[in-house]
């Protein structure tokens, strides 16, 4: 029987959650025994190739491409996990949610103190995805099955959650893996 497939992506995140995933260290060898990786920044596969058991979502949605990727994950994964605070709550990127979008763009590309843009151009190349009016946590866009909080969730948290799901055990994380202080 083929191994279950796992896909992962980083949307409006910093890849820190993926770094945390790598922090499982040599357990990654055990993980590879359990699963095959599909689309993921780890193997650089660009699109999900076949049905996956689990999709790991880092980051919320700040632009249309994030939404597009998230849709692809929802359509092709049995279980979606928001991992990390950005996916769960919007996190740092969502700090812009109280500032009008135009003001954000002006500050970043036109008026900021370190910006050199004498013609006052705003980026509008079709290759650049349009920003959303605000940053949305993943579950505002699609149904999310599990949430792993943390900035980032620790390697142990990820390991415990993934192995539980892959071995059909209930995901019951001890308090130590969910407290952050």
């Amino acid at each position, binding site marked *: 029987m083929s191994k279950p497939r796992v896909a992962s992506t980083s949307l409006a995140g910093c890849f820190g959650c993926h770094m945390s995933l790598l922090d499982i260290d040599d357990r990654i060898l055990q993980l590879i025994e359990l699963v095959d990786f599909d689309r993921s920044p780890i193997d650089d596969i660009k699109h999900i190739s076949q049905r996956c058991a689990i999709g790991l979502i880092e980051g919320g949605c700040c632009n*249309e491409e994030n*939404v597009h990727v998230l849709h692809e994950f929802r359509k092709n994964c049995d279980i979606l996990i928001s991992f990390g605070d950005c996916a769960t709550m919007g996190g740092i990127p969502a700090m812009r949610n109280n500032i009008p979008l135009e003001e954000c763009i002006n500050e970043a590309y036109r008026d900021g103190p370190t910006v050199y843009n004498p013609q006052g151009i705003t980026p509008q190349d079709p290759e650049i995805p349009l920003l959303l009016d605000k940053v949305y946590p993943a579950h505002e866009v699609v149904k999310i099955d599990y949430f792993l909080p943390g900035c980032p969730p620790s390697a142990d948290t990820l390991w415990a959650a993934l192995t539980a799901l892959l071995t059909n055990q209930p995901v019951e994380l001890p308090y130590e893996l969910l407290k952050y202080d």
Partner: protein
Amino acid sequence: MSTMTSKIEQICARYDHDRARLMDIVREVQEAFDHVPREAFGLIAEHAGTHRVEVESVVSFYSFLSDKKQGDVVIRLCDDIIDRFQGGDEVGETLCKALNINFDETTADGNITLEKTACIGMSDQAPAMMVNDTVITNLTPEKIPAIIEQLKANPDPQTLITEVGDGNNADPLVQAMVKNNICEAGPVILSDYRKDAGLRKTLTMTPEEVIEDVKTSGLRGRGGAGFLTGLKWALTRSSPGTDKYVLCNADEGEPGTFKDRVLLTERADLVLEGMTIAAYAIGAETGIIYLRAEYAYLRAFLEDKMNQRRAANLLGNNILGKEGFNFDVRIQMGAGAYVCGEETSLISSCEGTRGDPTDRTPFPVVKGYMVSPTAVNNVESYCCAARIADMGPGWFSSIGTGKSTGTKLLSVCGDCARPGIYEVPFGTRLSDILERAGADDVACVCVGGPSGQMVGPAQFGLGISYEELSTGGSMMVFSNQRDILEVTEAFMEFFVDESCGYCVPCRVGNVLLKNRLERVRKGEGSQGDLDYLQRLGESVKYTSRCGLGQTSPNPVLSTLKNFRPVYNALVKDNGSGMNKSFNIMKAVEEASAIAGRRSEIFHA
């Protein structure tokens, strides 16, 4: 400016420059200048021995106070769901048209201000509005133009009263068009009683015996929480402190309730008698009636009652010849804040600050008003206490059920033929009350107001009691024509407005509950949203600081429990896992306009 200075000095002097009377001071300043000018904040602070920020926080907290200039005439339309269902929105539109302004605006000539306000306690004669302190009931859009014409000609709202109501509403000091609508008088409060007989008997007993009698009677607080009145009095009596206080909670803000309005109109003496008995039992010399601003039209009448009692030696020093028993009462006016019905908020307000609830412990019985032992009881509880003193605890406890003794006043309103006050023994079935009120075709009854619960036909067989259906008195009836979730959303809107903002679960949680409910009502929700409402509702209930937040999720939680099919019909899942509430086209609209191009990924 100098006239303002002298006026403010004058007002503050009248209250002995006492910071604890800040509520009265700013109310008078508002009356004098049609608002509390920001320039006056510092001045008031200086002359009342407090800080500018205290003045500002009081003015900004209460909805009847304003730092913006208002008209001589302020119209406050009651915006409660009962009023809306009886045509309140149309009345509102007509008002806007007749005045040519929107809500929260003042006419160009600066004479008339139009506002909306939460339930003003007239749900049995809705829609209603307040014109300054005058209440106008049974409004229709047709009546509005004439009312406005009249107000333009003569800004005295009393001239709008052409016909006064029954009973003491016709008293020269009241002169209100309000009707009592007493539909059923029960044995305890609304039947004839022997005036002050309870007080006379009390004075022949020791305070301990009085408390023992109240305990034996099984009397529980009538405001809704149902704490044992005798125990409360005993604790207040035994708490250390030389000054003790008796407070009467007449801040009847729970939407749909109006029983205290009727009690203060028709049983003012009984209320004062009960307070005096409490003072004797506890050892208090000072009492305060916290009267909600909406009932300001009863103030002069109540003051007069108090004067009559002083003249008859029923208040004052050595009451009825009882050496050393001194007790007097003052009225503290509220200024439009629902949360002040919560006892610790009520105390804060009496002390001249924002109506913020305070932490317990210590409980008010230990450290309440002025950090002294304080018994806060509902208007109706004092009436019961006075009757127990006269008729005996055995008589009282023989009425009602084992754990809920006596009678309960119910304010029945909404979709029924006979809205009004029903005094029924505890244990009376909801279905009986609905039948007597002429309510057929009932889909839902909100028992106990928004902070109570919304029940459906399956619960109509339950009795009104602390064990089954507990209520402070509000009973709103909704027919099958009504959208139950519209009611629920209106209630959540009410709590969002009325949260004092102190604690996060209540300040933020209620907004989130309301937003998610809106999503579900729009048909954009999923089953997950219902789970979210349940979870968040429980969190708000469990983690809020005072009774407001601990009960504010009840409309959502009780409808999720009792009207689940209504919700389920709205959240039919298509199984795609895509949230219907997220609209990508709308989300990229702004960026698309800025970039001057359409979305390359998502385009229609």
